[in-house]
């Protein structure tokens, strides 16, 4: 009997197809591409606004176009996925203990969703009313 351990290799590129949980992880990580792109877009929009009315109106025109709507729909889906995955792990990263009892994680997560819903709704209504 001799020792000759056998080393298996994992693909550097395609590993995340091996299990649904890895696909979910990659989707979560890729949300940042859309979140980041949106951040860049906000910066760009402010720059156009600064340049003047004509430039701003050109941008608003672009926002009505199908490619822009398509991008924003996909970005919204990924942003929502980011929100859900982020909130759901909050009690893991920041557990709360009161005395010798664990404060229920569901309440922590639920509070996040509640505040999120209120803030989102308030901003949306304000955006509509502010004009």
């Amino acid at each position, binding site marked *: 009997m001799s020792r000759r*351990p056998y080393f298996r290799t994992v693909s550097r590129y395609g590993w995340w197809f*091996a299990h649904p949980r890895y696909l979910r992880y990659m989707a979560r990580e890729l949300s940042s591409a859309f979140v980041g792109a949106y951040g860049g877009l906000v910066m760009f929009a402010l720059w156009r606004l600064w340049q003047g009315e004509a430039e701003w109106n050109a941008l608003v025109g672009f926002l009505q176009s199908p490619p822009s709507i398509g991008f924003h729909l996909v970005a919204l889906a990924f942003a929502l996925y980011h929100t859900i995955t982020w909130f759901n792990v909050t009690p893991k990263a*920041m557990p709360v203990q009161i005395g010798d009892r664990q404060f229920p994680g569901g309440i922590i997560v639920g509070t996040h969703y509640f505040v999120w819903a209120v803030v989102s709704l308030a901003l949306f209504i304000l955006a509509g009313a502010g004009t």
Partner: protein
Amino acid sequence: MTPRRIEFEILRYDPDKMQKPEFQTYLVPCEEDWVVLDALNYIKDELDRTLSYRWSCHMAVCGSCSMMINGEPTLSCKSFVRDLPNQVCIEPLNNFPIERDLVVVLDDFLGKLNSVKPYLIPREKKSLEEGVYLQSPAQLKKFKQFTLCINCTLCYAACPQYAHDENFVGPAALALAHRYNLDSRDVGRTARQDVVASNLGIWECSFVGACSEVCPHGVDPAGAIQQAKIASTGDYFMDLILPGRKS
């Protein structure tokens, strides 16, 4: 009940005879209440005495019977055949070198475990006469969950970051470091931080969370690592503001 016949495809490797591992199929008449480990024992007793695999307790506490069952890192003594299809693929645990058949080399994990000093480092050593170190239920609760680890290494098999960089300290070792860091009787955190808060410690983790999904005892190593990231980030900025402070 008549036994259900299940086809087990098992990855075999004999370092003396084979260049690389190959699958071998066994047809096993399984009883309703069997776990996969029972089927392996049946193979070993009735069909093929050369099959090698580790096990000891048959009740999910020793952590030695880990293997890939249909692609999922699993304790074979906890995996009931009634939950499995008629064809089951069994491989040695992912991300570890194969010693022989389903036996893997665990040296790397044991070294990492050792590197985080997974034992109590008390402020002062008490002699036996002085009695025990006291702890309240609330203090115990802080880390109890992380004491449940049985070193089965399923979390290492599930972790893609460990798969791609074997130098990553990895889930169970970091969770155990966290367990001792949270212990009110322990003062070893500073000593552990050299490994824990290094680039190959908690910072190699990208919170895939696979470790916590496969852990058979709900240890949640991924949670432990995120908690350690938050604490270490606090340390880092405190050290910037107050250089040379005592932590």
